[in-house]
């Protein structure tokens, strides 16, 4: 187990280094100097700015400097908003995004698993077909379209929810729903196929031959095993919800990190794009690693495989 985590940690660090390096060099070759994109600055001011941001240094010095700063959890200043650092933006926006993300995650997992289990238990009957049509629709509608339609019909037309902003719990419902729709559909499909596979296993027949009721078999023998693959999906799920939040936050005017990220893309605010990308990458890779470790604890077969051989 320790060896396994160590190995995964090493891969994660390599991936991270790759991302940091790539972002650094991408930004250097990005078209146009960030300061000249809008109006011509006097040369002495430009030189000052370059010195301020370290752009007058040779590239390897800048690269080294960047790596060291990242290690110190310092993502540097913003090019556009002189008073703000990337750290400020993250500190301000991330808690909001995390709230929204957590709500969406909960929705996606709870309803996805429920839908998947119902579909599998009522296999090839109408609940199955209904659940799977909902799921395939959920996958087919991109989140920003879903968000727009929810906002248009439920908030603007029917007035059931606030249209935008981030104040009360009611404000969180529509964005969380829009964000959760696609991952929920994925989870429902995954749970269903995994549940069907589990239900066809011999040990389910054994449980039935013991005289256990369908309910006990489902809860004690089937669901637990069927959820194992769903746990592995939690990593990609977090990624989907994070990236999905870019557009959702924008549509609903939520002051989260995703909205800041989109603004920085539109402004070509390179240091913010860089910093937030690296931050997101760290977040994602760490959450995927955590999911994998958690999986090792949930599945008894894996716990031993890492240490000594099972038999």
């Amino acid at each position: 187990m320790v060896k396994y985590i160590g190995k995964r940690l090493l891969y994660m660090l390599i991936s991270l280094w790759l991302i940091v390096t790539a972002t650094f060099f991408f930004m250097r070759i990005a078209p146009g100097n960030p300061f000249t994109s809008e109006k011509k600055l006097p040369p002495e001011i430009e030189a000052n700015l370059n010195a301020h941001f370290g752009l007058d240094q040779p590239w390897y010095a800048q690269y080294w400097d960047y790596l060291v700063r990242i290690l110190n959890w310092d993502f540097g200043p913003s090019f556009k908003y002189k008073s703000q650092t990337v750290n400020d933006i993250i500190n301000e926006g991330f808690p909001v995004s995390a709230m929204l993300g957590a709500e969406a995650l909960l929705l996606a997992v709870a309803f996805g698993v429920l839908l998947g289990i119902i579909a599998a238990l009522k296999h090839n009957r109408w609940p199955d077909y209904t659940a799977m049509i909902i799921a395939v629709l959920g996958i087919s509608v991109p989140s920003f379209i879903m968000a727009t339609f929810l906002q248009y019909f439920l908030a603007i037309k029917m007035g059931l929810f606030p249209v935008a902003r981030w104040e009360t719990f009611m404000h969180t419902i529509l964005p969380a729903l829009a964000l959760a729709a696609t991952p929920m559909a994925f989870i429902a499909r995954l749970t269903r196929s995994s549940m069907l596979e589990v239900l066809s296993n011999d040990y389910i027949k054994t449980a039935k031959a013991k005289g256990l009721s369908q309910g006990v078999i489902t809860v004690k023998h089937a669901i637990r095993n069927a959820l194992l693959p769903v746990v592995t999906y939690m990593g990609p799920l977090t990624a989907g919800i994070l990236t999905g939040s870019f557009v959702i936050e924008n549509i609903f005017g939520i002051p989260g990190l995703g909205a800041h990220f989109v603004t920085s893309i539109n402004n070509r605010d390179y240091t913010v794009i860089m910093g937030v990308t690296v931050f997101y990458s760290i977040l994602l890779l760490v959450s995927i690693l955590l999911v994998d470790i958690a999986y090792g604890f949930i599945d008894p077969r894996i716990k031993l495989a890492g240490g000594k051989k099972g038999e």
Partner: protein
Amino acid sequence: MQISKDKFQLVGSKYEDAEKISKPSLSFWKDVFIRFRKNKLALFGLVLLILLIIMAIIGPHLTGYDYRTNDLTNKNQPPSSEHWFGTDDLGRDVFTRTWEGARISIFIGVAAALIDLFIGVLWGGIAGYKGGRTDEMMMRFADVLYGVPYLLLVILLMVVLGQGLGTMILAMTITGWINMSRIVRGQVLSLKNQEYVLASKTLGANTSRIMAKHLIPNAMAPILVTMTLTIPSAIFTEAFLSYLGLGLNPPLASWGSMASDGLPALRYYPWRLFFPATFICLTIFAFNVVGDGLRDALDPRLRK
């Protein structure tokens, strides 16, 4: 009971006959087709897909309008007999632009899937076939690259390389092929030790012949399914990037860029969002159900 005595003659087994009269054997693809046809939803998806492709081919020529010509006297017109899907903020015909957009969205999807296929089959095929250290190195590289969050990398590349059709496809495929290569490698690994491949090896078939005659046809099924499911994800990514303002340069129309242009005008000119959004959903839906149907038809064990 009276049975005539000649019925009790010893005639012996007729198992050659018995084997002959059993069901006519179906070729693999015929069998797949029959199973696919039984899946109503997948069949519906296929019909939808064919219709969408036909419209993408003929749609832009049906109205006599051009997708790029502005007509500022006729902007934001609602759907009418003149402009079937209305016009946008520059007075361009939304119907024509929608089908022009279909061409581009489907092109992006298909191109991304084909490039993924090409690199993935090459990379995964070589890694799986060579095995040993080559395999180890190649797959480690893929693992590390796979750790990079997909959409973030795509966004970053689009920011750096500038917007455009080519850069968009490049950005999507730069890590998109990894999935395909893993599938191909898995297939190759599991197939290459099977008896019939060993048999043809002992008969002196060379590597490329084994690849072409045995491995590729058997790996076809999962490859085809992965491709069918790559296309909708690429169409989705295109729409997503367009929404972030990283889409194609105007006046080029894609569904994503039309939808993101239409978003702010939703309250007053809903048709500008409605048509492209509907077709994005329909296309992704169609590809998804066809992909699911293909997967079930190709692997009867999964279908229960």
